[in-house]
């Protein structure tokens, strides 16, 4: 076995056969599962009910009685049953909004239609009243009928630091009440109107060479995100490991013993390979888990397996570029505290794709996506996002991006090797930019 492989094997074993690695590896799916399972329950169970008073000034005299009736009806068991039925029928979003209304303990304060709005606004902020004063709604005079044909709405006033759910509830109540009033004023049957205006959302069916299958909503967003996440996780996993072990070897002074047996380049190469294997192990486990989940739900066919090949290629490019630079940063400092300053720009590069994820997926062939695909080292993340999107780029763009990435690898490894060779034996003040440039020239 060559010396590079021996170094790699030690790095791999020293990283993988530790409690920290096992815990770190398991913690991502465990935390993800807990968030998915317990999170919604916590939100439902713990969210406090919205309590307080809502004042309404109704300039039309037609909306307020309907609000009063709606509030009385919503607290009845029959109303809750109806909401559940509507949620089952597919109107989950609307039902949720109404459910929020149903879980409140609101008191309606009815004001005269000619009430002074400025005085009513003061009511909102007068003292520390109990129950709390949540909102003042002023229904426009033309909200139900208008001579000009243009219908009005309502104005809503709330105290500062208001719970956002209050606005959702008030809007829901007033919207329904205003629509009822408008329908009644025109002699229309509101229930019939709702039926006429309701078109349930359908699930699309994917038609391909292999037949038809149900489309999974959002898959075109989730797949690129998952692949980019795997790439990012792999690079961060390995890059951080390379930096940490380099700093440790330097601060432990074991590095000179190693350099008496191997060259700096062999040491660097061994560490790269060792941590690459660690990252492959972690990525392989997560990817295998993901594929197993897809297979379990008979969704395996929805995934283009070429994406896995591209994931491996772009991972190698990103790892060799960012990993070697992380190692160079580790070699130039004396401890982890000093390392933080040098690794900050590299971490920024690694998390940049999170910021660019949405804009790239909205326009996978837009200018931003196009530029990001060809600028190393973020081109790896950008191109993988585009490849996973619903309109992947042409093959020549992919291979051009790979070629640019490989050129970036040579550049990064060249710089890193020069810094590593000098930095690894330098102790004392960490280098500034000028010193790093001098090292590049000297090595």
């Amino acid at each position, binding site marked *: 076995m060559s010396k590079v492989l021996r170094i790699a094997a030690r790095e791999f074993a020293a990283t993988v056969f530790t409690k920290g690695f096992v815990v770190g590896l398991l913690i991502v799916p465990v935390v993800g599962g807990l968030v998915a399972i317990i999170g919604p329950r916590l939100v439902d169970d713990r969210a406090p009910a919205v309590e307080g008073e809502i004042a309404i000034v109704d300039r039309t005299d037609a909306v307020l009685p309907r609000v009063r009736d709606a509030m009385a009806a919503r607290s009845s068991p029959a109303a809750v049953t109806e909401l559940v039925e509507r949620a089952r029928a597919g109107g989950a979003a609307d039902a949720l909004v109404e459910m929020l209304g149903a879980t409140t303990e609101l008191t309606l304060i009815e004001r005269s239609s000619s009430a002074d709005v400025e005085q009513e606004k003061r009511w909102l902020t007068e003292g520390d009243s109990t129950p709390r004063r949540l909102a003042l709604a002023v229904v426009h005079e033309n909200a139900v009928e208008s001579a000009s044909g243009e219908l009005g709405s309502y104005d809503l006033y709330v105290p500062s630091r208001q719970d956002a759910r209050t606005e959702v509830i008030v809007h829901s109540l007033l919207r329904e009440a205003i629509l009822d009033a408008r329908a009644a004023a025109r002699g229309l049957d509101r229930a019939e109107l709702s039926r006429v205006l309701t078109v349930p959302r359908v699930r699309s069916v994917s038609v391909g060479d292999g037949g038809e299958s149900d489309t999974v909503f959002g898959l075109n967003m989730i797949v690129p995100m998952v692949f980019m996440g795997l790439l990012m996780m792999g690079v961060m996993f390995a890059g951080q490991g390379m930096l940490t072990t380099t700093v440790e070897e330097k601060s*432990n*002074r074991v590095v*000179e013993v190693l*350099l008496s*047996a191997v*060259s700096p380049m062999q040491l660097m190469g061994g560490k790269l390979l060792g941590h690459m294997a660690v990252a492959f192990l972690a990525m392989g486990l997560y990817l295998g888990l993901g594929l197993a989940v897809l297979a379990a739900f008979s969704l395996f066919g929805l995934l283009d397996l070429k994406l896995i090949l591209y994931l491996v290629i772009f991972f190698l490019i990103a790892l060799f570029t960012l990993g070697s630079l992380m190692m160079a940063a580790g070699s130039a400092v004396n401890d982890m505290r000093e390392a933080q300053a040098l690794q900050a720009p590299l971490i920024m590069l690694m998390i940049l794709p999170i910021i660019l994820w949405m804009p790239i997926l909205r326009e996978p062939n837009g200018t931003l996506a196009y530029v990001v695909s060809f600028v190393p080292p973020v081109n790896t993340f950008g191109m993988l996002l585009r490849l996973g999107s619903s309109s992947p780029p042409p093959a020549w763009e992919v291979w051009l991006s790979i070629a640019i990435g490989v050129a970036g690898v040579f550049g990064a490894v060249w710089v890193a090797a020069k810094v590593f060779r000098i930095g690894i034996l330098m102790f004392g003040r960490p280098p500034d930019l000028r010193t790093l440039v001098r090292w590049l020239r000297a090595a």
Partner: protein
Amino acid sequence: MRTTAAIDLEGVTKTFGSLKAVDALDLTIPRGALYGFIGPNGAGKTTAIRMIMSILLPDLGRLSVLGHASALEAKDRIGYLPEERGLYRKMKVAPYLTFVARLKGVPERGLRERVHSAIERVGLKGVESKRCEELSKGMSQKIQILAALIHEPDLLILDEPFSGLDPVSTRLLKDMILAEHRRGATVLFSTHVMPQAEELCDHVVMIHRGRKVLDDPVNAILRPQDACALTFDPLEPHADVSRVRALPEVASCAAVGGGYEVALRDGADPARAIQSVVAALPVARIELKRPTLEDVFVGIAAGDAAVSPPEQRRAAGAAA
């Protein structure tokens, strides 16, 4: 430059910024020799050793190690104990030594036995499965020394090997160095402890401010005929030594402890000086004061590095 010497340096120079750490160093160490590398702190010893090891590259000059233009080509035949020593803290002792041995090309066959017998040899049987972070400082030192020897190198380079060792461990290390030398290995070690260099080495090289100022066999450096001083105890405790001070061979005569130390003038014959002192004053004891390596070291380190080695030695003798 390929020679039969174990180490051959020719005009090797290394500069860090404005500091010339090693300045045109010429050095030839024959195979099988035991060389001491001495010099004050910051003299350039460690930089020179790192260049020999190809850990640092020289700015100028040429070097050859075990017949190769670079130590990189012969790393498996070199054992190295750096001045700044370290271990993988989380690794266990036996796996650590096994890892180093494998890096040095030791074959798998018999490797386990080799590691265990090496640990036993330094009296650490039972620590094989302890993590390195659990070892005491002295135990760590021994393991680090074993890491340098585990592959039975042809060339052994030890940078300050005795620092931090207790007397028992120092004795053990001396025995190990001598055993390696007897086995046929070439040994080069740097030290500040002059009696150890004097006791162990065939040959001493001293560098000061990056330049070589001494490169001679120990017995040539410490030749009795080069003595520049005498010590004597008068027969009468309160004898008048003014007659001794007046002798033409004597530069100075000073009381030291219960006796006197006489510095001889340049060119004075020590044998004639003894006869003159005995004739001038009845003595209970008189002998030539042989220069020690420490005298030479202090004399050179305290003097001007530009002075040539023989003059330095004379200066050192006078200082003593």
